């Protein structure tokens, strides 16, 4: 259940992938974790029950809540983990032949990994708007 909320307040999330700016929409609820006022576009549901802001949802997706900050071991949920090995499921998987991959694995930097949302298994086949 979302907390009741006075509608006159403004959403406190930011919008803009490249040009970050305050969201100008009216808030309709509050994040149950950080209590930030948020509009419907910046609201996410966790486990179908918890209403949170996109910042807290992202932190939950990343597993940051429970992660030991001193842990620097390889994380297979980190996109760079598999970006270094793009095509790991390549031609050998089907013993076929054909044109070589158009992708050069050296084309991609760690920053490119941001192109794939960092997810745990729970998001796949659950977030129907995430494709």
């Amino acid at each position, binding site marked *: 259940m979302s907390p009741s909320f006075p509608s006159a307040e403004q959403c406190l999330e930011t*919008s803009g*992938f490249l040009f970050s700016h305050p969201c100008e929409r009216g808030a309709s609820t509050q994040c149950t974790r950080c209590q930030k006022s948020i509009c419907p576009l910046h609201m996410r549901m966790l486990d179908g029950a918890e209403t949170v802001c996109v910042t807290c949802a992202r932190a939950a997706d990343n597993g940051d809540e429970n992660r030991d900050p001193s842990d620097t071991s390889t994380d297979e949920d980190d996109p760079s983990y598999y970006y270094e090995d793009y095509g790991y499921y390549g031609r050998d998987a*089907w013993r076929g032949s054909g044109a070589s991959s158009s992708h050069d694995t050296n084309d991609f930097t760690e*920053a490119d990994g941001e192109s794939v949302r960092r997810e745990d298994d729970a998001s796949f086949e659950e977030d*129907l708007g995430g494709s």
Partner: protein
Amino acid sequence: MAARRQHWRLYALGGGLGHLTRAAALARAAVARGHAVDVLTNSPFAPGLPLESWLGPHATVHRVDARLDKAATVAAVGAWLAESTPDVLVVDTFPRGLAGELVALLPTVRAPRVLVHRDLNPVYVERFDVAGAVDAFDLLVVPGEDAPFAHHPRAVRTAPWLLLDADALLPREEARRRLGVADGDARPVVAVMGCGRPEEVAEAGATADRLCVSLEERAAVRWLVPTAHAPGRAVWPALAVMRGVDVLVGAGGYNTVQEARATGTPLVAWARPRLYDRQALRLTEAERVGDAAELEAKVLSALLLQDGPRARPAPWVNGVHAAVEAIERVAR
């Protein structure tokens, strides 16, 4: 025209506009061959698009509300599949279904199955046994990009799919008018593509505003939106006006990138984070930007490089036609 009219059903669930756009391209080409096509979509943009009239007389579109939760969406898919038995079922991108529902539902479909097979997040591929799901299909059609199982024995590669063939695009001057450029205005057009999630459409508007300021009078900047969204310019399909666009700004989704490349339109784009799609893999270093300053610099550079009308590539090969022929061969 095909020898016999077939009944196709196209499953195109997925957020944003990309799945629907690809399915619409295939549906339009199939209808033009004389087939009857039903499209299933839950795109949030579908309610605002004139799909039926655009696809042709033998197309129907079943719009599932994008706001439905998983259980309701799965129920809608089950009901749609149970409506009738087609001559072929075509599934876009997700062999298990968007919600994993096709694993249980596909065995109930007594028709050949075709997967439109594209790149997927490798973590998902590995953890959800996508390889096993792929094996349930009679044909995999790979529309112009690399994909995990592109070498599957039943896979067929085609050129990228586009909504329109080259001869269906508006001429440059007419396209510029559709983009709201006055006849006497010779400035190049920078079009910022609003697509993806609804909030990303709005963000594209902010990007267009910023470019308006930074480019001053060097270019006419237009914010393109698929459906009415004041004050954006509603143009769908955007490919129709691409000959009037001198620099395209957008994200690295399949359709934006393939449309820019086919038409030879310089593209400046960022890789949006997606759950399944890896947009950074699609973009070249020259196209890709990481921040606002880089975006403005690359757009300006692309404008400065243009000296008069640019050379356009030869008419492209639209892969939907080869796909339609391949699907006809497996349909009953």
